[in-house]
């Protein structure tokens, strides 16, 4: 399994043609306490860079963009009752949704862990 990162601070973990998507630790720190998560419906067709979910914190509401094109196959509905999971475990239990990838070639342009780390350091 490999992890990739976007410039919009989403991560995705790829296993075959299924990717699990969440927001990064940096993103949750910037947002502050998450109070609400709106998840996509299963079966929703998402495009790379298009809106997929909404995350709302005490500071702001933000879109979560889909890091790739495909179809949503599973959502983490635990987040609806416990949005704080996004703060507590952003890279694990705080995942947002799983998607079936329709164009694995898109993933090449995403950053790996080292690349994302350097990207975040560049923002600081």
């Amino acid at each position, binding site marked *: 399994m490999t992890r990739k990162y976007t410039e919009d601070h989403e991560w995705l973990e790829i296993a075959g043609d299924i990717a699990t998507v969440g927001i990064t630790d940096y993103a949750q720190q910037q947002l502050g*306490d998450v*109070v*609400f998560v709106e998840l996509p419906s299963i079966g929703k067709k998402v495009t790379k860079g298009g809106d997929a979910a909404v995350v*709302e914190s*005490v500071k702001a509401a933000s879109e979560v963009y889909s890091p790739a094109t495909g179809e949503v196959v599973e959502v983490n509905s635990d987040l609806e009752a416990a*949005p*704080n999971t996004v703060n507590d475990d952003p890279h694990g239990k705080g995942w947002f949704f799983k998607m079936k990838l329709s164009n694995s070639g898109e993933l090449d342009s995403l950053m790996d862990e080292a690349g994302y780390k350097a990207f975040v350091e560049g923002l600081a």
Partner: protein
Amino acid sequence: MSDWSKAVSAFKSAGEGAPTMTGNLGLQLEEPLIFEQGEDGRCGVDLPPVPKVESKLGGLARKGRIGLPGLSEPQVVRHYTRLSQKNYAIDAGLYPLGSCTMKHNPRLNEKMARLPGFSDVHPLQPVSTVQGALELIDTLAHWLKTLTGMPAVAMSPAAGAHGELCGMMAIRAAIEAKGERRTRVLVPESAHGTNPATAAACGYIVDPIPANARGRVDIEAFKAKLGDDVAAVMITNPNTCGLFESEIIEIAELIHSVGGYFYCDGANFNAIVGRVRPGDLGVDAMHINLHKTFSTPHGGGGPGAGPVVLSEALAKFVPMPYVVQEAGSYKLVEHEGEGGQNFGRLKAFQGQMGMFVRALTYMMSHGADGLRQVASDAVLNANYILARLKDEMSPAFDGPCMHEALFDDTFLKGTGVTTLDFAKAMIDEGYHPMTMYFPLVVHGALLIEPTETESKDAIDQFIAVLGGLAQRAKQGDQADWFRAAPRYTPRRRLDETSAARKPILRWMPETESKEAAD
């Protein structure tokens, strides 16, 4: 002894370790909710006994108690007086909320609004008996059209966001009248949240335009998004970064060239009133917050009022009702088919009459030259703050600003102090904080709008407080001190996270809320 401690513990508001028995701190009084006060049967007025009547409600008659508190008149008076004393208002001090234009509400406005010819009229009165009130609406409309350089105005919208809805519905009506179908509305990322919300409420897809490094609309990105499916662009000018959109005329020409319309959010009109006419910039629709630019009460003291000026292309779609002058008298156009292609009715009556009186009073008492001075002074005050604090804090963008000074949180970097902590420390110094974390395009934003209301003395004191706090934060090792603020308020740091995650939206008697929790 034990009896006394029981008596003291009856004061629920005094928590463990509180400095006083009651929870009151001097004359800063604790105040329970009105439902937590009083007792059954107590009443402020003598009501006649209810005669025995046979209920005709059958099984629908209420069985439980209504649950109104039993209180005497002085108890009610004290309750609301105490609550009002906890309120912070422009009448109490400087109110620097950016993007809100919290300016002084002149007392002359109030005097005029209380004239019986304005305060005692009813919107359903025969038109012949309210000619003066209709003339006032028409005169205010004339001022608004003149100040904006626009040919028409819809007076009825109740506030800014309602005005946006009115403007966007007029745009949609114009597009439909041409038999076109357009699906997208372009909105800059720095826009007020109501802009994309309005576009979505009108059924459009919101397409965001990024800002450039100068805090303005990225014109190349805007061009790339243009097409014959674009209904409108919604832009605030001056924008929410407190900057004038310098390419506004080109933006207007470009949107018109693809057959779209230009909606301008007039929330920041205070910065340009009497100096720039939005009609000259190519605007098709713009709401005007009378409760900002034209000094009518704002926030809890409202209501707001949001008339919308319309261009020639949109004028005939103005919603009902509106005032027209015919043969020397005023009448109201109340029905479809009475001329124009109005898109219907937005509001039951003619608009916020009390606010119209106040706004026109403000305009006439200032005159055209006075309004120009308002804009100049508002911009000067904001630039004075920006200039005096630019070394101590960190301006978000280079160069002068319009009516509000915008800082980011670079100056707090490495101190452990956040924008929120900084704002809370301001409260202890007696200041209402500025707008925080907005616009979203600026990290840890602090948006300060002093308005023209403030004297130089008041602004100097405010600057001293901000500068002093910034210096303190930068001394190092001050994060805990800031995190402990506010120290001197009736309640200290509120738990915003729990309030959002588990909001309690309705008061319930203790027994009921206990049951609900179980």
